[in-house]
């Protein structure tokens, strides 16, 4: 009586190509895992001092939980709209972010010497964090048109696309975020098919100009970076050159990590991070809290999860249906790779000291939401690899 009828060919076709079917769940799970772990670490790094000061010990935990929730919404929202649509609004988004970055220099709030935030009451918004994602899309959209063979004009235009927001970030000044933009530029240019000659030449110019900046004040008397900034950039090479505060902070950071040992001092048992010995222990130096309380086992597991996340992003770049998707994924990959390497390396004293958040772990609204949005973009590309 009942016969099983094969579904209509069209229906089946649609099912096969459904974005949900090709959604990269492992990437999503890895992201959520890291973010959830981040909540615990936010708490671990701050409860003791907050409690001592008579504040709510879960203050940072609650805030970060809100950020993660908003981030998840942003991730889903970014993944929801077909990524190919972003190509067509890239220009508008790019101009909008330039305006915001310019505006923040005028009306922004200065925190820790950088005018990087719009504040309204307790709400803060850091355009440079979202700018990273926007720039990835804009740069990808632009370089896609060269179809894997970027000539010099394209190469230079690509550089200009990133250099503009970078320059505005430099004026804040936020050296760390600026370097993230640079990392995005280099990664995307490389994969987009820039000629090795161009890349090599640009790198050479970069090295020379960095060298010039570092010696400029002594040689020509133009001070582009103050001494503290300079010494922090070179601290990983020459620990003694750095100012006393920074050196103390670096020593404390390494002590915190080392004190964790193989298996850690136990959740909520860290004293280096719990008792404020490590600076910025809930933001830039949050990795020290992980390493101190969970030890090598925990810290390595975290790094491995990050590596897995990067692998999934890389796979998306590899499997993308089009070059734009590949370049978007590469941009996100470059961004995360640089942030993770730079941030974790800084806490261990092998990279310069610059304030860059560790994605999904560092306490902060804009950086967390932007990181989720970036993952959303990658999920989007992967999910639509067969989409018409």
């Amino acid at each position, binding site marked *: 009586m009942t016969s099983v009828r094969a579904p209509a060919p069209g229906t089946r076709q649609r099912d096969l190509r459904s974005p949900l079917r090709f959604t990269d769940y492992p990437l999503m799970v890895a992201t959520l895992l890291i973010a959830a772990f981040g909540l615990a670490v936010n708490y671990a790094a701050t409860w003791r001092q907050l409690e001592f000061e008579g504040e709510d010990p879960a203050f940072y935990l609650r805030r970060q939980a809100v950020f993660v929730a908003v981030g998840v919404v942003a991730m889903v929202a970014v993944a929801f709209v077909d990524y190919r649509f972003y190509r067509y609004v890239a220009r508008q988004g790019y101009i909008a972010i330039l305006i915001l970055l310019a505006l923040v220099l005028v009306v922004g709030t200065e925190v820790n010497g950088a005018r990087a935030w719009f504040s309204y009451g307790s709400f803060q918004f850091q355009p440079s964090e979202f700018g990273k994602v926007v720039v990835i899309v804009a740069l990808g959209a632009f370089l896609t048109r060269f179809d894997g*063979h970027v000539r010099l004009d394209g190469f230079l235009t690509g550089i200009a696309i990133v250099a503009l927001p970078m320059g505005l970030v430099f004026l804040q000044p936020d050296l760390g975020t600026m370097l993230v933009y640079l990392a995005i530029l280099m990664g995307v240019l*490389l994969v987009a098919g820039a000629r090795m000659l161009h890349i090599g030449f640009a790198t050479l110019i970069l090295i020379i100009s960095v060298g010039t900046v570092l010696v400029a004040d002594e040689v020509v008397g133009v001070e582009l970076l103050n001494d503290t900034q300079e010494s922090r950039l070179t601290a990983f090479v020459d620990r003694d050159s750095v100012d006393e505060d920074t050196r103390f902070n670096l020593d404390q950071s390494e002590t*915190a990590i*080392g004190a*964790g040992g193989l298996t850690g001092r136990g959740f909520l048992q860290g004293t*280096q991070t719990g008792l*404020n010995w490590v600076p910025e222990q809930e933001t830039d130096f949050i990795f020290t809290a992980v390493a101190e309380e969970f030890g*090598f086992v925990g810290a390595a597991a975290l790094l491995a999860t990050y590596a897995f996340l990067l692998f999934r992003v890389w796979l998306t770049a*590899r499997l993308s249906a089009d070059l734009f998707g590949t370049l978007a994924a590469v941009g996100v990959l470059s961004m995360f790779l640089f942030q993770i390497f730079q941030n974790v390396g800084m806490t261990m004293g*092998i990279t310069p000291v610059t304030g860059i958040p560790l994605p999904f772990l560092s306490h902060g609204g804009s950086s967390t939401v932007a990181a989720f949005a970036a993952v959303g973009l990658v999920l989007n590309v992967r999910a639509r690899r067969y989409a018409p």
Partner: protein
Amino acid sequence: MHQRKDRARPRRDPVRLRLGVLAIAVVFMFGALFTRLWFLQVLSADTHVEQAQSNQIDVVELPATRGRILDRNGVVLADNEFVSVVSVDARAWQDPEADRALVVEELSRLLGMTPAEVSEQLDDETQDPLVPKVIKDDVEEATRVLVEERHLPGVRGELRAVRNYPQHDLAAHVLGYVGPITEDQIEAEPERYDITDRVGRAGVEMLFEKDLRGDPGRRLLEVNRQREVVGTAGEDVPPVAGEDLYLTLDARVQRAAEEAIVEQLELARQRQSEDSGNNFPASAGAAVVLDVDTGDIVALASYPDYDPNWLIGGLTKAQFDSHFLDAQVPSPLNNRAIQGLYAPGSTFKLITALAGLRAHTLDAREMFNDEGYFEIPDADTCPTTVQCRYANAREAVLGLLDLSGALIKSSDAYFYRQGYLLDRTGDGRELQETAARLGFGSATGVQLPFEATGRVPSAELKAQLADEGVIPDGHWLNGDNINLAVGQGFLAVTPLQLTNAYATWANGGTKLNPNIVDRVADRTDGEVRRVLDRRVSATLEFPTGNDVIWEGLSYVTRSGTAEFAFQGYDHDAFGVIGKTGTAQAEGASEVTGITREDTAIFAGVAPREDPRYAVVVLLEEAGFGGDAAAPAARSIFEALHSAELEDAAALEAESPAEPEPTEPELDCSATALMDRFGQGTAVVELGLETVAEMVGCDPAELGPIPPLVPGAPGVDLAEGRDAPVDVAADGTYRRLQPATVGSLR
């Protein structure tokens, strides 16, 4: 499949290749992170763990309470008191300028100081930079709590134990004082002391530092980077209190000795010196009381003295000047009883007499005609260049005397002759040897710091002094021995040495090292940790004729040079055998700047029949020994006697049988009966009235009946076991087990 192949267009190959490059970069960078992580967390974890702990944990020393110092009867001479101290640790400041401004402003308000005063204390460079600066000590407890609650950066209000001398200047020189540690002491025992420690700097405080000090404890505090204390780390190591020190002193006798010195010095200052016509300066003195059988020092006084409390917190220059640089009050820190060097004058005739008897230059009963002077008979040994004639004081002619009479009247001529004869008999060293045997010229070994040794003149000593340029001519002359025989010349003794010599003579020849400390005892349970034994340093035998000396000296206070001073004294109860001395002192007076007046001395033992105490009183520039020193000695002997009587009376009061323990009054309240017999028995089985009657109480006295507790025991009268009570909901009671009512006996 077909589609996939289709996608792998050749023109995308460079993208794949470059993605490969990116992958390599990822692997490389993560490899670097893992390597560094491994190095920090696995290879060098140990040093980091240590570093983290030393960060996190602040070790606070819990000072040990210093042991007390008490007299032989338990009178507290040195104790500790707790004072509230407010201090500031500038190292805890995050923003030095802002924090300093805040601290100065708040503390000046809380402590009632001006901001300038607070600032001055903060910048006080005499305080150790490594420890919190004391802003104010001795603040009110309420103020201290207020300061603590304010949680100002680096500010702490804490209790500190501070040495306290409740008897003030009593026995100050024996006690010494506690003051800041010296660098040498820290270097000697770096693990025991640090720069903030206060240690004994003089007296027994110094010599018994190890016993008194105790061991400090430790508290481990958990601190954050701002050096705020967030908790403790582990158990405190409690401090071990220092041991109590019981001195041989008797505070009553000590006080009497100190008062006697002051009193007699004041009287002496009202008298005129016959030598100069001026009033005696009488500025200083010392007194020693020894137990002749044990060597225990019963009193050791030195005047001028000081209040050791002054020295605890350190002195301002003005305070120091007014206390210690007053010309009328010379060298109050000197303990003259053991550090002062004096000519003993006629009190030394005891030694000369013993030497004469021993060398047979003296026949105790042989009569000597004192014509007021002694002249060296032999012209050869007395060339015109040196003194040949030695006169009595004011050339007094004392007439015919035997040894006894010579001592009673203190004939100088008699002993000048002995000095001369002793110098010419045998090797001429008998007087020096006798003096040395009795302890002159060497330290007595009392447990007090800085004891002087003194000197006994001899040919060698004189030659040595000449070599050192102290005196022009080093030739030993008869005259030197003649002067020595009456306790003058180069002879220098401490009051303690003189006392000990008389004590040795009085106890029959047992020379002891004087003790100032009797025992060391645990502070909490009073258990004796260590008793300082009596130390015999030599046993001497006295020559035949000693009884004549004994006889002579026993008349000094009755019909001799001290007769006037001892008028009305109860010689039968506590008779004194002694000798006065009036010694010429060399040099100019510290006080007047002109030639020193005579030193007044009295040395004696009591009671006469079986001496138990030796007493020496020495008053500088106070005139005749009989006028100034003997009355002071008399006061001390009287104090000794009354202290003995007091102790005997106390012993008697203690010994009678303890009063009969009175029958405890019978408690007839309901509560008491229920407690005694159990509520089951008292209330349920028999009823309270019955129980009351059985034990002999009036049932009317029962009073209110307390509520019963379910399940509480009563006594099972049949078996003597406890049996529970059942209280029903309606308030009625019954035993859970039926019991037979038996006798309550």
